[in-house]
């Protein structure tokens, strides 16, 4: 297979040396910015989740002037706050055989050999610094009576390497980053712009030099210039309408960068999380995740007989199928997410699903409660059990939970090199918004790790190297590129408002979600994907003729905000389907029904598809073109993933 990318912009810039020395080699040769010069540079950070918050804080501490933007009313509300289960690190505190190598290996394997080795190894190396940093900030991780940190295991791993803060790990980590950021706001080194939405990227002389934003309170359009732009805007799971993402999570900032020349990589790689509260009706606005950590103590089962509608306590042990334990004896209930999700779908499709809709399986804690007692289970999962009861009205201490897969995370994102820089110089992409570390499937407790690795420990070095290696002629916010980009952003808003049709944004979004879930969801086929492309095309056409947005552009107006986001989601959805169509193999979360083993597992095609697909925008009305960054595996030989 060719080792050269099909486009000169796709140079991953992996440093030389043995994989364990690459990051050290980079750091020791990277150019530095003199402390007195850092304050002459303004850096824009869009998004204040784990990646953005940690980056803004760390860069401000170094002396850069930071302008931080978020769409929520406070930096503390970014969707990272909702992550439940934990964060991985290769500390090996439990003495169970973990190491940086093993975390690296598990992540590459878990990603079904579609991630870049160099990036993943760095992530594993940095994982330990993250835990140190967070503990020093006062993040209250779970502790043993010794006063030392506790760990638990997570799907896809046979060691206990997950640090956690009850079922609210994301909240506590984000508050750590947010507090570090607020400290620098107080010190005058970060200017915070809450309730501001990025509408476009300003590119001047080939470099990212600013953004156009809308003040979501007044509707005013503003221009902000900088020497570099960091996009930390999260994933695009809401393209499915129903997902575990927060309602305001969206792809707009990333999509506008795509249209300015940033390549979008592997858009079809979506993670469908196996343990979510099932859909209960079509009024539903979002889905709620039940942390994967529950699979440590819960056993997944369905009735052995098709159509058995008895309530769970009436089904005797011998008539239950603990299908994960049966099919995957060595990993059991702790198989990776993609495997667990696909198996749940298989059971439901085969008529063994439970609950009113039949679109659910049981997650049963009875054995663990017998073994460990209510108290221990409550210590581990108390808040999750409470949340489940609030939403469903059922008590999981007494009745097995009903769970079903839901869209949770997107591994695809803007293409970045080892420096986290996109194909637009000066535009860096961090956290879930980039594509780099998780391949075709992310392991549990690795999203928090990646967000914080990028923000705390990678970008301070790679951004410095970029600043030191380039000159930055002053660009004025009144200059032509800013004026032109703003005019386009205003044009889009006016166009949306001028349609004046009869169908609401939410209605379109929900329909888009149905198409995406049915045809670009857990099981994908050539015909289905082609159908999705046609249907989305029709819907896009109708959207611009029949959309209805009440209210005006110069006030707070959620309908208008969502109208712009849904327009971008439709375009992205189509690209996801095209990407899934070209990838004629199954890998990780991407399951093409035509490509499976006899046992129904994902069948990769390393010969033809061992590459990252990096899509390039070609203008309105023209199809994007696909470029390939070949993936080479020098340290972990690809094999068929086996969790049996």
């Amino acid at each position: 297979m060719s080792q050269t990318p099909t486009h000169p912009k796709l140079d991953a810039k992996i440093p030389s040396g043995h994989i364990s020395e690459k990051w050290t080699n980079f750091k020791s040769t990277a150019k530095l910015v003199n402390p007195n010069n850092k304050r002459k540079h303004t850096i824009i950070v869009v998004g204040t989740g784990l990646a953005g918050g940690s980056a803004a804080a760390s860069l401000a501490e170094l002396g850069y002037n930071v302008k931080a933007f978020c769409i929520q009313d406070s930096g503390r509300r970014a969707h990272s706050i909702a992550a439940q289960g934990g964060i991985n690190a290769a500390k090996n505190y439990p003495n169970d055989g973990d190491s940086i190598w093993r975390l690296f290996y598990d992540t590459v394997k878990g990603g079904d050999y579609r991630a870049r080795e160099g990036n993943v190894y760095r992530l594993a190396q940095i994982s330990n610094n993250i835990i140190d940093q967070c503990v020093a900030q006062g993040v209250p991780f779970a502790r043993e009576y010794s006063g030392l940190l506790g760990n638990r295991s997570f799907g896809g791993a046979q060691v206990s390497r997950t640090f956690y803060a009850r079922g609210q790990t994301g909240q506590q980590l984000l508050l750590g980053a947010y507090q570090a950021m607020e400290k620098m706001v107080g010190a005058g080194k970060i200017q915070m712009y809450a309730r501001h939405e990025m509408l476009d990227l300003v590119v001047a002389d080939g470099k990212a030099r600013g953004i156009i934003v809308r003040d979501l309170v007044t509707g005013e359009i503003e221009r902000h210039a900088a020497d570099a732009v960091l996009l930390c805007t999260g994933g695009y799971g809401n393209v499915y309408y129903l997902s575990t993402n927060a309602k305001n999570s969206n792809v707009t900032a990333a999509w506008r960068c795509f249209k300015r020349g940033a390549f979008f990589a592997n858009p079809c790689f979506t993670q469908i999380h196996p343990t979510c509260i099932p859909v209960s009706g079509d009024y539903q606005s979002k889905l709620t995740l039940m942390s994967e950590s529950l699979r440590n103590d819960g056993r997944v089962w369905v009735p052995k007989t098709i159509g058995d509608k008895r309530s769970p306590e009436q089904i005797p042990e011998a008539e239950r199928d603990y299908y994960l334990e049966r099919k995957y004896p060595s990993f059991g209930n702790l198989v990776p997410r993609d495997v667990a999700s696909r198996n749940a779908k298989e059971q439901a499709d085969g008529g063994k699903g439970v609950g009113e809709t039949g679109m659910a399986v049981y997650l049963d804690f009875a054995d663990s409660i017998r073994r460990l007692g209510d108290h221990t289970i409550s210590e581990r999962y108390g808040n999750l059990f409470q949340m489940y009861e609030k939403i469903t009205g059922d008590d999981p201490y007494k009745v097995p939970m009903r769970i079903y897969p839901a869209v949770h995370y997107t591994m695809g994102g803007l293409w970045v090199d080892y420096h986290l820089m996109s194909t637009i110089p000066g535009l860096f992409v961090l956290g879930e918004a980039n594509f780099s570390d998780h391949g075709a499937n992310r392991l549990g407790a690795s999203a928090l790790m990646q967000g914080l690795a990028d923000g705390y420990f990678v970008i301070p070095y790679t951004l410095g190297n970029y600043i030191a290696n380039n000159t930055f002629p002053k660009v004025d916010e009144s200059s032509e590129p800013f004026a032109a980009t703003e005019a386009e952003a205003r044009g889009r808003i006016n166009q949306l408002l001028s349609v004046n049709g009869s169908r609401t944004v939410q209605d379109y979004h929900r329909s888009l979600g149905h198409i995406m879930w049915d045809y670009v969801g857990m099981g994908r086929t050539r015909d289905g994907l082609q159908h999705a492309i046609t249907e989305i095309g029709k819907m896009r056409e109708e959207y611009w003729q029949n959309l209805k947005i009440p209210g005006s552009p110069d006030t707070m107006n959620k309908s208008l905000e969502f109208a712009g986001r849904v327009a971008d989601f439709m375009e992205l959805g189509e690209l996801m389907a095209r990407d899934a169509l070209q990838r004629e193999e199954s890998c990780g979360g991407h399951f093409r029904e035509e490509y499976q083993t006899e046992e129904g597992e994902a069948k990769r095609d390393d010969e033809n598809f061992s590459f990252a697909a990096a899509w390039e925008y070609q203008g309105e009305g023209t199809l994007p073109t696909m470029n390939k960054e070949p993936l080479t595996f020098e340290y972990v030989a690809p094999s068929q993933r086996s969790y049996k």
Partner: protein
Amino acid sequence: MSDTLMTIHLKVWRQDAPTQPGKFVQYTVPGVNPHMSFLEMFDLLNEQLSVKGDIPVEFDNDCREGICGSCSMVINGMPHGPQRGTAACQLHMRHFKDGDHIVVEPWRAAAFPMIRDLVVDRSSLDRIIAAGGYISTNTGAAPDANSLPVDKDDSDRAFDYAACIGCGACVAACPNASASLFTAAKVGHLALLPQGAPERKRRVINMVEQMEKEGFGDCSNHGECEAACPKEISISAIAMMRREYVKAVVGS
């Protein structure tokens, strides 16, 4: 539990801008499923308004799973509504009856200026954190995480305070519109941990001063904050903050 659809009568605070007077407007929402969340019932209302060409009700919301702290509705006089330990987004309509009348208002406090309808500006809470609600550890300076054991009970208590979602329900519930529970939760979280010790005195003084500067009222032990808190943070935090404050002032 019945799945029979309900009709709900709402009285909702509408206000176009801080400079314009607001008023209650009545709406009748048919077709409410008891499994809906309170915010999904508002989605339904807003769809009905949009289809008619009326302006939807603006309300802050995001995660809809009780952790981001965005939602901020006073429901029948109670911030986040009648269910204890539950944010409005996790309040489900099964706790209401067909034909119920429900009054919905924004958080009201001088330190939370009105923006529109049910949306207020809570940035004063961010400024309290910026005044001292952190441990100053620059990135990269941390020792090994296990080099400093922390008593498990202290760590658990710190967590109980750290669970605050910063929604401001405590302020909305307080007759004095005090942010004492919010501020005390952060003071308590950091004071209970050995990592927080070096900045302990300066932190409590600066945060309390900022709270006053923002125009929040004083605490006079009504206890409404604890009752309204969706994370059930104990008012013991405020007692702890007072002790910390006195020690800091006397000791400095």
